[in-house]
């Protein structure tokens, strides 16, 4: 697989300039991405009594705490019932934060994959961004159960859900390709990623709605790709108000980050085995 047929020569020579990903090769190696993702998924819940229950446990518990804090202690105004607001935000955020952390570390945590075998390296971070999607889909079931209690019904906007899921994947990949590449050489990233995720939640509309942000700051705020994706996700699922065209600003940032991430990763990839 992947390394071609007997008729064609495969060359290994010093690379120059931009190296775009070889899509044909990525496709040939797709099963490896599947098995790596499956491994992540299985290993995560092995020997855990709650098993995959953890996937939904985390956002649910956080939702309860958030609801308590932000409706009793500090008052946060939301257009939709706060528990639904928080749960939908936390489901998305849990995916982004978790996958980002795992995907950034995948190469460093699996050094032999880099130094002992060949495969298109891009597959590793991609594969580790996938299992979180399974958790996310499971959590959506919880949301589906809770929504009727608050008399929240999805609108036709739910049809755009796949788009927002794809956007989340783009955000995770863009950032984790940049940071993951850096991590191969500088382990500082491993330490920094936790802090980054902790800070990021404050500049994203997870606990509070983006319309709480002063008008003057909104453009800057939505340069954060998570901001628009989260609001879009909420709009699609829980019938929240459409946050406006600033969402496209977030999507734009996400795509720019992805492009930058892919190019940087591909550029550095050939030397991973030498420096990891």
């Amino acid at each position, binding site marked *: 697989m*992947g390394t071609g047929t007997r008729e064609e020569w495969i060359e290994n020579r010093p690379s120059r300039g931009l190296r775009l990903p070889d899509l044909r090769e990525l496709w040939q190696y797709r*099963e490896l991405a599947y098995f790596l993702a499956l491994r992540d998924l299985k290993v995560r819940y092995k020997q855990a009594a709650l098993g995959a229950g953890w996937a939904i446990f985390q956002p649910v518990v956080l939702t309860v705490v958030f609801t308590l804090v932000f409706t009793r202690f500090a008052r946060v105004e939301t257009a939709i019932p706060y528990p639904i607001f928080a749960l939908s935000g936390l489901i998305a955020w849990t995916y982004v934060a978790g996958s980002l952390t795992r995907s950034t570390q995948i190469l460093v945590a*699996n050094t032999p994959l880099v130094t002992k075998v060949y495969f298109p390296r891009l597959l590793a971070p991609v594969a580790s961004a996938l299992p979180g999607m399974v958790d996310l889909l499971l959590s959506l079931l919880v949301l589906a159960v809770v929504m009727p209690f608050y008399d929240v019904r999805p609108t036709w906007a739910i049809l755009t859900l796949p788009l927002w899921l794809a956007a989340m994947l783009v955000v995770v990949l863009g950032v984790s390709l940049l940071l993951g590449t850096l991590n191969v050489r500088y382990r500082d990233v491993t330490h920094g990623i936790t802090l980054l995720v902790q800070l990021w939640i404050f500049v994203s509309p997870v606990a509070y709605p983006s319309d709480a942000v002063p008008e003057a700051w909104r453009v800057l705020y939505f340069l954060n790709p998570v901001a628009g994706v989260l609001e879009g996700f909420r709009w699609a699922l829980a019938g929240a108000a459409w946050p406006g065209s600033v969402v496209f600003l977030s999507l734009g940032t996400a795509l720019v980050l992805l492009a930058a991430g892919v190019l940087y990763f591909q550029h550095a990839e050939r030397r991973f085995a030498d420096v990891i």
Partner: protein
Amino acid sequence: MHAIEIEGLSKRYLLGEDRPGGTLVEAMSRSARRLLRMRSRPRRDEVWALRDVTLAVPEGEALGVIGRNGAGKSTLLKILSRITEPTAGVARTRGRVTSLLEVGTGFHPELTGRENVFLNGAILGMRRREIERRFDEIVAFAGVERFIDTPVKRYSSGMYLRLAFSVAAHLEPDIMVVDEVLAVGDAAFQAKCLGRMETAEREGRTVVFVSHNLEAIAKLCPRTIWLDGGEIREEGDSPAVIDAYLSEEVTRASEETVAGDPGAAVVLRSVRVLGEAGEPLETLLRDEPFHIELRFSVRTQVPGLDVAVWVANAFGTEVFREGWFDHSPDRPSEPGEYVATLRVPPVLNVGEYTVGVWIGSPYETLVDAVVARFHLQGDVKNRPSRSVVLHLPWEVRRISGADDPTPAPHPRR
């Protein structure tokens, strides 16, 4: 038709400041300093792991790669399998390449044997359908049928290794790149690995095999290259290349040992192989005794000084080792110059031999090196594989007559 073509291949590694594992802050302060021109850019130390290597391997050939540690063998394999890219030159391969630089890459202790087989197979480039088709064979070859749905963390290290190797053994690559996989595992496992590589060769696969096991190289590969300092030192028929390599290794080791550390308590001066009459010879006759003579000086008194000499055959098997400890009651420990001679009776079979010397005490090792080699000539008779020829006496007795049906009584327990 070639399966591998390598032209002017070079690989440079940078050491020093740009080394892996440096921290981000170091890199940033370095860049800042560079920007401010506070210091001229520091000279980086570089190591050329490969230097202008040109080589072609015909389809279906098994090529051996030998050389000292750091000679560039592993780098060559890594470039062939595209794990890293060269600094200059090009390596071309034709067909599916599988690199076995390690067995069980990607194995996860929490996953079951079954799950790991699929994962590892995919990592080594097998398609899922291919793994499914050969799954039973893989498990049977490893002999872990009963445990296939048990997490591999519960496996013994032997089972783990067998399963990992079994996946690799069922690959069907056009080109197989193997690095010292044989260094792990017991003798039976190593034999299995070698057997598998022989099969691969017979099936017409191209094999590139790196090993320190010269016997295995000689057996598997008709042609061998000797890498030295990143360059091809010699290339040709395996026996000739291996012989040249061994000869230099022994000379080098001997020179290093004899030069020694001038401050050491004991310094080896020379090691010679002498014929029966005491004349230095490199080629001896099989059926005549010979002597191994050591000259060494003891600088400071070493309590419990002991000297041992061993002889190993071409397969690396130690045929005998003789130390003072076993025999000599009067061990010198006073400072001075010494000559020690060991008389070896004509028991060794014909062939190539290396001589090693160990000097030390129960508390420390002062000298431990292969320092000489010799060749024994003579009639091989019909058993070239035996290590020693002892001509031990037989005693044959008749214990009952041919007509007597009762067998000789066994001693009762």
